Each structure stands twice: as structure tokens, then as C-alpha cells.
């Protein structure tokens, strides 16, 4: 569609203004993280710290054992991503590349759980894990990923698998391949980008998860970054320089992952959003 120059420049101006609004909170966080407390509240605001106080980061990250929180989070995230990828690709294969009786019915039932508010299953699930002795462990946060890997991911992968021509499978069957070989040698390599999409979403979901760790973890040495940050916020309410440094350190890995995998994020969202 060709737009007139006037319309384009008005749109452009709007986009610049909106982008600025979206960026300001992040810029504010980073500049405050690098600033001396004496400069932080100066009005009108100073945007560039002078001097750059890099040791805010070391001070913020050593007041609480953030290195430990980082390792804890990494363990949960890696185990979660592996479980999700293995489990959701297998399920999506079964729901798209094998024709079996009742397939769509079963898929429909599983899909309906996407609409279910988590609160309904929360309490019995919690009590179940607790009675099995898994309270204050990572098991409740990680193990469910190995059972289906989240129906949303299965849905996303299934959408992708259905676009792969069926001739590929048939050719493999002629060559004597079974379903598992078709999954492993044909579908999985062809769906690399969709697998990356799922991994990225799962990474972010696990990295940012607050509710799960809040409910299942008790000992602070097992805390994740999100919980640690919240704990930090509770005890250093007015130390905005350190608070911003800690926040920036937690946000940074997400931003890096997003910027590297940007193309896949957008692809993934397109894949889910196009079909109502």
C-alpha cells in the first residue's frame, strides 16, 4: 500500500514519540543504575551519569547472593527448556503427522486447558507436590515441562508441522522409516526455527516466572533471580541506585536473548496469532 508523504510523516512522528515513551523507563533504569545517589534525584533530571558508578552493580549484586540466584535460575531454565522442547515436539508430531482415530478430539480437550485459569489447579497441585515431599525443591517448577511441555507450545509446533508437505513422510515410509525416524530425521530438522521459537518463549517464561518460585520455594538459598530481586526490593526500598542496578542485571540477559533471537520471536508470534 502506498501512503502519501504527509500521512507518512505524521505516522513517523507518532512512532518516534511512542518509541521514546517505551524506551524511557529502560533508559531511566540504566542511567540510575550507574549513578551516584546524590545525582539520582536532581531536578531537572540528569540523563548521563557523571561519573559512571560501575561499582553500584558489584554492591547491589553482593548484598544478596545474586550469583547463587543466577545459578539457580539457570538450572531451572535449562532443565525446563530441554523438557519442553523434547516433550512438545513429540506431542506435536503425534497430533499432526500421524493420522489416528480420536486425534482431533484428544487435541481439542488438551487445547481447552489453555483457557483454564491456573488458579483452579493451583491448590491441589501444590498440596500434591507437598505431600510427595517436593516442597522447597525445583521439581514442581521443572518436572511438568516433561509432560507435554505446555499445550501452547504443542499448538504452535503443530501449526508449523502441518505446513510441511506430507510427501516427505511418504518418501521416508517407502524407504522403510518408522514414525520415530520420521520425527527425528525429517520433521525435527525441518522445524528448527519453530523449535527455537519454543525454546525462546520457554526461556523467557521460566526466567521471568514469579508465581511458581514464590509458591514452591522457601529457603532463600534456593531463590531465583525474580524472587531475589523482589526480596531485595523489600529490604532496600529507598536505595534506588542499587535497586536499579539489581533490576538492570536481571533484565539484561532477557534483552540479550531477545535481541539475538528477535527474528524467531516475531516469527513465533505470527505463527500463533494468525489463526484465531
Amino acid at each position, binding site marked *: *500500500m*502506498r501512503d502519501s508523504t504527509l*500521512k*507518512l510523516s505524521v*505516522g*513517523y512522528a*507518532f*512512532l518516534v514519540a*511512542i518509541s521514546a515513551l*517505551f*524506551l524511557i*523507563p529502560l533508559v*531511566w*533504569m540504566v542511567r540510575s543504575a550507574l549513578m551516584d545517589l546524590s545525582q539520582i*534525584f536532581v531536578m531537572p*533530571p540528569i540523563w548521563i551519569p557523571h561519573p559512571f558508578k560501575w561499582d553500584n552493580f558489584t554492591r547491589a549484586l553482593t548484598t544478596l547472593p545474586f550469583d547463587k540466584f543466577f545459578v539457580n535460575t539457570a538450572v531451572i531454565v535449562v532443565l525446563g527448556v530441554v523438557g519442553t522442547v523434547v*516433550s512438545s515436539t*513429540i*506431542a506435536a*508430531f*503425534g497430533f499432526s503427522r500421524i*493420522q*489416528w*482415530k480420536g486425534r482431533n478430539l484428544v487435541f481439542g480437550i488438551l487445547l481447552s*486447558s489453555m*483457557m*483454564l*485459569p*491456573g*488458579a*483452579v*489447579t493451583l*491448590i*491441589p*497441585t501444590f*498440596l500434591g507436590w507437598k505431600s510427595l515431599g517436593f516442597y522447597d525443591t525445583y521439581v514442581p517448577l521443572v518436572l*511438568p515441562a516433561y*509432560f*507435554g*511441555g505446555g*499445550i501452547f507450545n504443542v499448538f504452535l509446533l503443530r501449526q508449523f508441522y502441518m505446513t510441511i508437505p506430507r510427501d516427505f513422510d511418504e518418501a521416508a515410509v517407502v524407504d522403510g522409516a518408522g514414525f520415530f525416524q520420521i*520425527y527425528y530425521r525429517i520433521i525435527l530438522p525441518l522445524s528448527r526455527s519453530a523449535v527455537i521459537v519454543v525454546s525462546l518463549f520457554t526461556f523467557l517464561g521460566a526466567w*521471568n516466572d*514469579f*508465581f511458581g518460585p*514464590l*509458591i514452591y520455594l522457601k529457603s532463600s538459598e534456593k531463590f531465583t533471580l*525474580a524472587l531475589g*530481586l523482589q526480596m531485595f*526490593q523489600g529490604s532496600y526500598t529507598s536505595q*534506588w541506585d542499587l535497586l*536499579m542496578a539489581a*533490576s538492570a542485571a*536481571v533484565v539484561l540477559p*532477557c*534483552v540479550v536473548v531477545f535481541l539475538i533471537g528477535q527474528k524467531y520471536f*516475531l516469527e513465533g*508470534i505470527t505463527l500463533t*496469532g*494468525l489463526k484465531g
Partner: protein
Amino acid sequence: MTTDILSTPAPARGKSIRSRERKALLYGLLFTLPATLGFILFTAGPMIASFILSLTDYNVFKSRTNFIGFDHYAVLLSGKDELFTKSLGVTFYYVVLKVPVTILISFAIALLLNMNVKGRSIFRTIIYLPNIVPAVATSIIWMWLLNPDLGLVNTALSWLHLPTGQWLYAEGSVIPSVVITTLWGIGGTVVIFLAGLSGIPDQYYEAIEVDGGGWRHKLLHITIPMISPTLFFNTVMTLIGSFQVFSEAYILTQGGPNNASLFYLFYLWRTAFRDTEMGYASALAWIMFAIILVFTLLVFRTAKSWVYYEGDERS
């Protein structure tokens, strides 16, 4: 073998088809078994358990648990639990404010991004970026930005000689303030709209141009009908998400001031995990489920009249 008796050509072919079907069924079930088990273990099972729990007075610290039938529901529906009524009101207010604002603003931004401007992908990246910031960090940043005395928002407003506000610290403004902080993460919805917009063929717009129609005609007669499935999807997802707001309440406001931001899920969490009234909290969960279901069904029902699916490939 017994099958030899039936070895006329046609049934033999039928047989091989049937065995292939059986093999497919076996493998289909096998591949989907972890997911099905997961559904039973983490969705269906807990759902049933949650309902049963809601009919008891189960409390972690009480030695005896009694079956009390629908007593919890009776208490809740009679309005005797003022905090429940309050949290319901708060959550409805939030949903009513958040859903239309989110949909309108993200649609408008998507329309802007869909224009052929230079640096489109940079704008898109910037607008999506806050969506990936952890809720805890988002809350901490906004707590400061909206701080009545030291926050950037009030500073900017007073600099522009506009009235400042108490934001998260006043009963009247706390919910709109929470909506503002969540609008920062609107990027996900924007990108979904954008995907829908880019799927509209140019010829449709060209046809309007040939007929001499302006942008308003394009928007009303092409864009909105063509985008309606995406609009529908985004509305349902935002609706379901808004009913379940939690982190914001937990970190930003702790339900205050004076319970003015006592979001439903926050109240539920408090009842279950602080007061350990898990039976009562289960009843709260089921009421929430029923409300979300009713709203979602309502949106689905109205969808027939406004959601347009091209052709009939609706699968």
C-alpha cells in the same frame, strides 16, 4: 495362520489398511502420551480435586477436615465476605479498563507500524522490548517512575504545569496506574495485530483507491473486517490474562491502599497461602473459573456477528 482363510484380495487389502490404522493409532497414542498424562496429572486431576476441596473446610493447620457441601459458595454468593466482594469489584474495574484500552492502543500502534516508514523494524523492536522485562523488574521501575514525590512522571507533569497525581498511593488512582504499568508491556499484542495486518492483500486497498475511497473507508471496510479474527484472539487472551493479574498486586501495591487494588487472584493467594484456608480458596478459584468462562463464552457468542473468516476454511 487363520488369516489365510480370508485371503481373497479385497479383504486382504482391507486388512493391511486396518493394521496400518492400528499401528498409527498405537504410535499416535504413544507420541501424545506424555502430553495426555500431563493433562491428567496437572489439569484434569487437580481440577476435580480442587472442586472436591472446595466442598470441605480444609485448612493446613486444622487436624480435622469436614465435608461442608456448598457452604463456601453460599457464603461467597451471599456477599458476607466483604473482601471477596471488594476483590471482585476491583478486578472487574481493572478488566473493564484494561481490555478496551489495551486493544485500542495496541491496534493503533500496529496500524502505525504497518505503514511503509523507514526504520519500521527498529520501532517494532523498541515497542516489543518491554514485553520481555520480568514482571518484578517492571514493577520496581514503575514504582519509582510513579512515586508521588520522587518519580519521573510527576516531575514531568509539574514541569509541564499539569496536575500531578498520587498514582499507586491513592484509592481512586491505583487501578488506572496499574493499567498504565501493564500498558508498557503491550508489545506482544501489537505484534500479533501487526502479523494480522500484514496478511491483508494490497489489492483490497487498491480496489478502494480505485473507487475513490479514503483511509476511513479502508479502515472500516477492509482493515477491520479482515483483522477481526486477530482482534477476537487478542480480546480473548487479554480478557483471560486480566482476570488473573497477580505479580502487579503482590509487588506494586500489596492490595492497597485500603484494599483498593485487592485483585481477585491476590486475595485467593492470600487466603490459600497466608491464611492457609485452602478449602475456601478452592471455592474462590472455581468462582473465578466460572466468571472467566462466562465472559469468554460471551465473547465467543458475539464473535459470530463481527468476526469475519475469509472463505470457509475455518479449521
